[in-house]
């Protein structure tokens, strides 16, 4: 343990060199900016910055690229809250409560809880990375297809909490998402499904595109078409910028729970950044003492529904560095490109990394602590400025949202087809809003559907068709038992006359 601290201190000596501080700062600013823009994700940005590795020394470049990676996880929440436009797919859950809060004049507290929660989760995540990386990595390897599928089953069951007030409408939206998820080349057999011979559909439909279409374009068009007559502009009201004592009290536990869900998820291969945010949101919804605040209940937006998923998202980003640094295994697209950056310096992340490039890695880890602090300092003062954006008159604001959405989606792969598709999906979003169908379950279905199909088929292939594999392996079995508990315990409790604070 003492040895770890000494190495970390050495790392700090590297990280606080002025040049490296500058690189960290550039990375953080850039990351925040691209996090704010929908469509332009950290993976693309890191890829575009790769050539810099030819000019800058390894510590500086890697510190900057990691800053971009981290900053994007911070910035993604901003547009979710303000404009209902998720900047990254992992901030979709944030939009649910965050945007409702913003509409009721509480954009400030929503942005603040996201920023502080990200800082706390990020810092705890890096601390866990410092102390337990090798242990966590060994545990993460135990996750194979069977374990993932059991986890997906748990996610599907708990996801009912995002379905909104009407179960039937929620399930209809979820099914639409599952259907959209089927489009494209099937991940196991490699056979195109529902592509209608359109080559753009072969890789499936990008969920950022659907999210931006449904949330941003749908929202903007809906407001233009229907809202002015019914709503005399509550959106532009701003009550308070800062978090109240009650906000703090409700955010704390949500931050910690979000961290506990997000970090392990980041470290397992093929985990993805979205599912922990779903799970965190479900958890907060179930545990909340203020269920009436949640947007699906027609409330004013529950702060824990922002705090939890945002913390989960950032802890997840820290967790993803565990397999990256200890095993050389990328768990996200951005991590894969970061590996490319290491390789440009002839450094191979993996089991030998801490031995071959110790000072560099410890410098990088130290810079993550510094980067987290920088992002907090950078983002908190911006809260007031961002929140004031909402006082922009509606026509200009919605026009701005449409411009942002178009640039972002076109930027993903310079495709006019994608742009067209986004507007088609936007119109679907308008229709769904008009008839009170929730849009979040579409995205949830799109993400969970193809992943669970892939893991189920791989798991059964590995077990040679034995369905009991999900109960024979300890981790998979734990998730299955948890699923059964989540399904039946409330029912049994209710039968025995125990009232829960919130019933679905």
């Amino acid at each position, binding site marked *: 343990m003492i040895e770890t601290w000494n190495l970390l201190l050495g790392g700090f000596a590297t990280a606080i060199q002025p040049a490296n501080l500058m690189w960290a700062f550039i990375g953080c600013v850039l990351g925040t900016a691209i996090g704010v823009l929908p469509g332009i994700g950290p993976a693309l940005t890191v890829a575009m910055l790769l050539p810099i590795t030819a000019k800058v020394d390894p510590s500086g470049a890697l510190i900057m690229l990691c800053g971009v990676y981290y900053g994007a996880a911070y910035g993604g929440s901003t547009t979710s809250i303000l404009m209902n436009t998720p900047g990254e797919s992992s901030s979709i859950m944030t939009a649910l409560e965050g945007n409702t809060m913003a509409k009721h004049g509480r954009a400030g507290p929503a942005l603040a809880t996201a920023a502080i929660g990200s800082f706390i989760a990020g810092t705890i995540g890096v601390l866990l990375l410092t102390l337990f990386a090798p242990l966590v990595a060994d545990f993460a390897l135990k996750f*194979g297809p069977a374990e993932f599928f059991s986890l997906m089953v748990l996610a599907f069951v708990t996801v009912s909490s995002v379905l909104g007030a009407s179960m039937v409408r929620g399930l209809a939206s979820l099914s639409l998402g599952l259907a959209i998820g089927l489009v494209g*080349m099937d991940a196991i057999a490699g056979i195109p499904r529902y592509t209608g011979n359109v080559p753009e559909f072969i890789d499936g439909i990008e969920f950022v595109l659907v999210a931006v279409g449904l949330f941003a374009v749908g929202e903007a068009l809906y407001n233009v078409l229907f809202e002015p007559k019914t709503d005399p502009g509550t959106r532009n009201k701003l009550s308070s910028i800062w978090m109240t004592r009650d906000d703090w009290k409700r955010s704390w536990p949500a931050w910690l729970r979000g961290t506990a869900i997000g970090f392990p998820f980041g470290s397992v291969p093929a985990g993805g950044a979205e599912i922990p945010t779903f799970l965190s949101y479900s958890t907060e919804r179930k545990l909340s003492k203020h269920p009436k605040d949640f947007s699906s209940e027609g409330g004013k937006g529950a702060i824990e529904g922002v705090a939890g998923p945002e913390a989960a998202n950032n802890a997840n980003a820290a967790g993803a560095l565990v397999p990256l640094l200890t095993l050389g*295994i990328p768990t996200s697209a951005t991590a894969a490109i970061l590996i490319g950056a290491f390789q440009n310096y002839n450094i191979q992340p993996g089991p030998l990394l801490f031995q071959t490039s110790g000072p560099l890695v410890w410098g990088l880890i130290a810079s993550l602590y510094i980067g987290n602090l920088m992002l907090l300092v950078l983002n908190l003062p911006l809260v007031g400025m961002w929140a004031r954006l909402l006082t922009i008159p509606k026509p200009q604001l919605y026009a701005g949202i449409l411009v942002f959405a178009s640039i972002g989606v076109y930027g993903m792969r310079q495709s006019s087809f994608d742009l067209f598709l986004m507007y088609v999906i936007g119109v679907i979003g308008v229709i769904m809003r008009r008839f009170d169908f929730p849009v979040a379950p579409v995205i949830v279905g799109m993400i969970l559907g193809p992943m669970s199909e892939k893991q189920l088929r791989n798991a059964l292939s590995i077990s040679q068709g034995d369905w009991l594999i999900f109960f024979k392996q300890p981790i998979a079995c734990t998730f299955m038992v948890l699923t059964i508990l989540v399904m039946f315990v409330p029912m049994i409790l209710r039968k025995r006359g125990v009232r829960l604070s919130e019933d679905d």
Partner: protein
Amino acid sequence: MKIRFSVALRHAAVAVASVALASQGFALDNVKFMIGANPGGGFDQTGRNLGKAMVEAGVAKSVQYENKGGAGGTIGLAQFANASKGDPNAMIVTGAVMVGAIVQNKPPVTLANATPVARLFYEYNVFVVPANSPLKSMKDVLEMLKKDPGSVKWGGGSRGSVDHISVAMIAKDAGVDPSKINYVPFQGGGEASAAILGGHVTVGTSGYSEMQQFIKSGKMRALAVTSGSKLPGEPVPTLKEQGVNVEIGNWRGVYGAPGITEAQRKALADAVVAASKQKSWTDALASNDWFPAVLTGEEFAKFVDGEHKRIEESMKAVGMVK
């Protein structure tokens, strides 16, 4: 109006002439690379490294890259074939992955709509098992496979990839029906390595450079490489040395625009060959474990036809293509 128009024409002619003068000494002007993948992947690295070497070799004045990912590179190929007809400075990066995507999805635009220029290099795969596996050699794996084809779980990249096809070829060579193999596809090398390290599959396969670190650190045991002879400096035996008559690699190369003349095609090939002798290119080869295999002209065209047939047959054997 007429006069002014002809003046404009003359200006244009002068401008063209001066560009031609300025580019003297360069075999190619501003080379445009189409890369049918997003930045960061193998196609992208190939294109960017080659472009850099072409400028360094003085055979191209400047280089531009356009990334258009999707569907194994065939979306980029379609745009390339339509937009750059007859352009002597346009090239597209291609390889076994793109040929596989063409066989699999039968897109309207194929490599037949472009002009073959040169093959550049091969990447070879390695077969590995987790360090605690009882399997010590490819022979052990084959014995297990012959006894019960389903019991050997092969982990690798997506179906139809070089990883998958190599497994099908091994099964066929061992006299086992390739449609009976239990192939578990993962997305990306990372997921596959994790599944191998975690012992979720019996045998794994992926590019040698990706697996090297796990082999060196003793977390995985290498059973065989897919190259024709041992990789330089590595003790891992080939498949052939263990009695399996399979040699397969993931090659990459470049194609030119459709409708260019034979002389223009030769100019492109000469430029690529010149670039392949640059230090920056040989360094890129070494750091990525790419094995140079330059092939140009008609021989390259014939090679691609052969690859097309070979991949199609393998996909038919495993039931992916009818």
